[in-house]
């Protein structure tokens, strides 16, 4: 696909730019050099949530009879897998940022906790896809799972936020750069956002193609096996 090559090239360029910009960011008083994470951690998080949303949207499209196509199931699978990747990276970079800055590998604020929950939800979604062979039954089941699961993300975020703030006198650490950052940092984060989104989009196209091709080859293999059985039955 020609346009995907262009997308890939753009992704690579912006990603390289992000790294260059990010690693070149100056040290700040608060965060020393650790604020360099701002170029990759928030963008990874944003993309993870985007991937989750795409999985849910593709699932809805699949379930709606008028738009039901195997391609949407393939997109849902691809986006979920990418979601696992980006969510895991979000958590890892978040941890690596938090440890030197706040002294902790983990903190139970709403964002991190919801992100961790989302990772487990994605893994569950992929797990239930893994136990059955491809086909409309799996596609329908997966779509229902995706939609049942997506709603808990905002509910949980709200719940954890209330939990961690309704407690009087409890100040909690958060991996928010704190809004004290100036233009350079904002620019790096914005470029990172664009770069990660482009990367995700490029990989989504590729991974969807893999899912569709796998589905086709599975279906063909099944047809072949059935035909072979029929030939056997006729000849005996």
């Amino acid at each position, binding site marked *: 696909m020609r346009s995907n090559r262009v997308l890939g090239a753009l992704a690579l360029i912006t990603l390289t730019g992000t790294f260059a910009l990010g690693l070149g960011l100056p040290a700040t008083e608060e965060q020393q050099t650790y604020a360099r994470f701002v170029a990759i951690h928030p963008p990874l998080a944003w993309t993870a949530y985007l991937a989750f949303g795409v999985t849910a949207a593709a699932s809805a499209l699949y379930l709606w009879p008028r738009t039901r196509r195997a391609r949407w199931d393939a997109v849902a699978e691809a986006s979920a897998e990418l979601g696992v990747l980006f969510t895991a990276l979000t958590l890892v970079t978040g941890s690596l940022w938090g440890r030197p800055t706040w002294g902790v590998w983990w903190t139970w604020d709403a964002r991190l906790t919801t992100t961790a929950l989302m990772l487990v939800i994605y*893994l569950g979604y992929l*797990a*239930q896809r893994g*136990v059955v062979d491809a086909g409309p039954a799996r596609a329908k089941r997966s779509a229902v799972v995706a939609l*049942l699961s997506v709603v808990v993300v905002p509910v*949980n975020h709200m719940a954890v936020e209330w*939990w961690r703030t*309704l407690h009087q006198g409890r100040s909690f650490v958060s991996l928010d750069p704190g809004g004290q950052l100036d233009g350079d940092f904002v620019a790096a984060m914005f470029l990172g956002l664009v770069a990660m989104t482009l990367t995700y989009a490029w990989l989504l196209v590729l991974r969807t193609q893999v899912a569709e091709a796998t589905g086709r080859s599975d279906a063909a293999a099944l047809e072949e096996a059935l035909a072979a059985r029929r030939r056997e039955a006729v000849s005996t």
Partner: protein
Amino acid sequence: MLHDAALVAAKDLRIERRSHVTTHQVAPFAVLVLVLFAFALDPDRGVLDRAAPGLFWTAVVFSAVLAVQRSVAVESADRAGDALRLAGLEPAGVFLGKAAAVAAQLLVLEVLLAAGIAVLYGTTLRSPFVLFAAAILATIGLAAAGTAYAAVVGGLGARDTLLPLLLLPVVAPVLLGATRAWEASLDGVPGEALPWLELLAAFAVLYVALGIAGYGVLQEES
């Protein structure tokens, strides 16, 4: 739809009355969980009493997984699930009926476990009205989400490991809300439970609606 729900609920509860799975297996399991918590945490330092709401609701959530697994398993025996569909029962009614039966069993379980934490952890059950309200709302949410997920993965071979993996993250807000509501009650500030009761109610409404929609989708032959 409600008539179908009542039929299905009555059927499931009748099966329970004859097979005693909840009373003879799930309830002892739940009490066992409470006991194991006492082994894991020091019973002499007041930790158990302070943690009692959380431990209680953790035990309930694990028991809910067992309860909904059982609820779906009864449909697999002798192709009973197909029989329900052939009988022309509305999928929404089947869902509500099964969820209601699970909720009823869980509520009975919760009464038992409440006695359990009062006895085993020395917890004083203050503000029973708030405790009860939280329990009802939380149970509806657990039963609805549980029944929906159990129906989705119930037919799969790996359902025993898949169901907890799928369901537990989703009911995390219920665990959070119910525990905080019970904490507020037991700490003598039941007014603080209000936002949590709202959360529990919202979750319950949400997953009853989603369960109805999901059952409809799953039952349609396409």
